[in-house]
């Protein structure tokens, strides 16, 4: 269990540190890369939760596809370092701080009230070959959650078509 705890601390620390770096960093490319490392940390957390499928999907979809596209756009547009303006938006800054504190307080309060989480059964952790969960996920998607699954698929298709049309219109 302690090994898992050390890994958790490492991965969580990595994720938080690089999430901060993502916001603070002025160079857009480094900012995107920090986000990649954050996703890597989250992947490790997912594996610790015995959800390797989720971990792989985070890595493939977010780190492997979406962020690479971000990187492409930034490199092709040749975006340079942000010009540091002297607090151009003071109101938003204060509002942002209030929102962060409120959300953080809410999370902290809920976590404290929930008490100590039940310790993961070590028997399940010791069983190295975990049960094959992928067929289960597939079956659930095509039975209980069929409507939601198809609805999301249609939504994605509509978004893709919309993106195509928008980019075409600008080219004409």
């Amino acid at each position, binding site marked *: 269990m302690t090994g898992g705890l050390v890994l958790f601390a490492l991965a969580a620390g990595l994720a938080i540190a690089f999430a901060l770096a993502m916001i603070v960093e002025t160079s857009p490319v480094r900012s995107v890369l920090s986000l990649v490392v954050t996703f890597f940390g989250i992947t490790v957390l997912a594996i610790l939760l015995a959800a390797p*499928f989720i971990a792989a999907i985070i890595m*493939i979809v977010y780190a*492997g*596809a979406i962020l690479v596209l971000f990187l492409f756009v930034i490199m092709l547009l040749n975006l340079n370092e942000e010009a540091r303006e002297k607090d151009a938006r003071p109101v938003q800054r204060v509002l942002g701080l209030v929102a962060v504190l409120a959300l953080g307080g809410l999370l902290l309060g809920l976590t404290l009230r929930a008490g100590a989480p039940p310790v993961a059964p070590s028997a399940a952790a010791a069983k190295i070959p975990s049960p094959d969960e*992928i067929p289960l996920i597939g079956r659930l998607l095509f039975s209980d959650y069929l409507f939601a699954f198809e609805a999301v698929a249609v939504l994605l298709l509509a978004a893709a078509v919309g993106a195509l049309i928008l980019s075409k219109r600008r080219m004409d």
Partner: protein
Amino acid sequence: MSGMTFFLLAAVAKIALVWAVMLAALLPNLVWMERRGAGLIQDRPGPNRVGPLGLFQAVADVLKMFLKEDVTPLYVDKLLHTVAPAILLVPALTTFAVIPFGSSIPVAGRDVKLVIADVNIGILYVLALTSVGVYGLVLAGWASNNKYSLLGGLRSSAQVISYELSMGLAAIATFVTAGSLKPSAVVDWQVANLWNCVPQFVGFVVFVVAAFAETNRVPFDLPEAEAELVAGYHTEYSAFKFGMFFMSEYANMIAASAMIVTLYLGGWALPFVTFTGVWGGVLSIVVFWAKTLAVISVFIWVRWTLPRFRYDQLMSLGWKVLLPLSVLNLLAVAWVVAMKGPA
């Protein structure tokens, strides 16, 4: 010895074995094989001065790379310029974790499966690692602050992303027939039935072509096309950082060949032979590496035989030919499996 300790020891032993074969035995000799093969194909001797048949040329080259000055150009992004080769090399060396390189060996009363991590998400792990490797290419190109590097990096990442799709879809068909995402299950299915390269010939061809593109090898080596881009993304690299690019190219080639062997050429199995006992296990490892080496020689043979594609041809081949083919292949295979009913 408790189960956990045994498991850990076995894993360490397996990692040591795979990396020993890859880094010590295959990598240096592949460079030799490639250059001698090039000589053979182009009717010239190739390296033949250092050691018998020029066999120690690779050792000399590695020593040279260690000893040379590591030049970092002035206007590069120092941090990213340094980590890019490592980002490229790590996925190349870790793909092997899910590839079964032998049947199984009985040790101390337990049957040790000859695969480092027989995880349920096998193929997804490989795809995730490939997509991380893309960052190495993009960053090497961008951090070098050189237009040729940037073009090479963008080209190669666009190429890797495009061909990853066809590669994944072709591979999925083999997992559909096997009924599991474990590469070891695909090998087991092939042992019980037929090597996948026969019933899934279309998928096999798509996968092999995509593997050539994924590893940036001729005829798809546009990222480093020396006629137009100097050397592409590794133009600004020297000494051992360049050596890391060199190593990752060959490590990627070994990994891609091993995937081809595992998914389509029966993995460690031979027809009409069952491997049992310790010697059977050892023999299955030998069979696996022999097959991988055979596929690698095809990579080398193609490199010195075919000319390079044009970039738009490469993209239209990927999107307009390979992708539809792999989708059709997947549909056909899924249809056949569905008709047969659950196994």
